[in-house]
């Protein structure tokens, strides 16, 4: 046995027919007001359908939709994982880092070379640390040093060594 509310809902939806419809129509206290309400409900239903626009799927469409949803669910975390796994070192950043490192290296090299130059100038030349002649063999022997900047030649100049005959020039 249906209640009045169930019959009312069925009547609004146009689900009543035959004797059931006749009995329900007879039970309505104000038929005109009920018809107006029915018209309002239909209008509201049409409006909702139009505005919300829920598209109905056929069975196969629904199935493939579900499949796509699952595939997406699985692929989205792996994409996230991939995004996490790919490091900060992207190709442009690697290039920039390499270029910046090279620039820093060159700047430091230039500064170091510039600082080193004065010291290196003396390193270029051979240095005579000390020199002595045998005082017994050459009692008047003296030594002095020169640097010839033209060819960067260092000369140890001796004087007063014992002179020798030309025979000593033999190979």
């Amino acid at each position, binding site marked *: 046995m249906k209640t009045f509310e169930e019959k009312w809902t069925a009547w609004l939806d146009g689900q009543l027919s035959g004797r059931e419809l006749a009995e329900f129509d007879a039970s309505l206290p104000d038929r005109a007001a009920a018809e107006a309400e029915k018209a309002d409900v239909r209008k509201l239903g049409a409006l909702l359908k139009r505005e919300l626009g829920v598209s109905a799927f056929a069975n196969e469409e629904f199935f493939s939709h579900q499949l796509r949803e699952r595939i997406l669910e699985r692929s989205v975390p792996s994409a996230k994982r991939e995004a996490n796994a790919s490091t900060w070192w992207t*190709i*442009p950043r*690697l*290039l920039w*880092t*390499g*270029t910046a*490192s*090279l620039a820093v*290296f060159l700047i430091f*090299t230039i500064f170091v070379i510039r600082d080193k130059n004065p010291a290196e100038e003396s*390193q*270029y*030349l*051979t*240095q*005579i*640390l*000390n*020199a*002595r*002649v*045998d005082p017994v*063999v*050459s009692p008047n*022997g003296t*030594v002095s040093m*020169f640097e*010839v900047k*033209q*060819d*960067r*030649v*260092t*000369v*140890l*100049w*001796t004087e007063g*060594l*014992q*002179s*020798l*005959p*030309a*025979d*000593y*020039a*033999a*190979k």
Partner: protein
Amino acid sequence: MGRTLAFLISFVSLIIGATSELQGAETVWSGLVIAENVAQPQTIPPELTRIEGSLKKFFGYNQFQVIGQSQKTLKTGQEDWLATSKFFGLHVDAQGESAAGYVLNLKLYKEKELLLETDAKLSKRSPLVIKGPQIGSGQLLLVLVIQ
């Protein structure tokens, strides 16, 4: 492509940095040279070519002849060797290597008699010339060059 380029840049930087530290074994040429003034001077020995101008200017001779020589490749910087002629001997004792060159102890002997002794830091880019005794009308020179 991009990664390769970045790798290449880093690699080249490292190579440039490391190259300055790489130094191989070097050869020291030591020679006993007689400098003279002659009418027809002979060609200067190839070992002296690079300092020909300085030799002529400083010592005032036009001919330089090698009467004794030695070429020693230094590996440890602690080697010693002898360059000899008939009457002279130049004993060279390397006593260590630095970034600039080698520390050498040099002794010039006339037969068994020590004429001259000196310690020098021989630079790789700077030859050393020692004026020895007068011989006849010429002059004995001792020359050391890192080749």
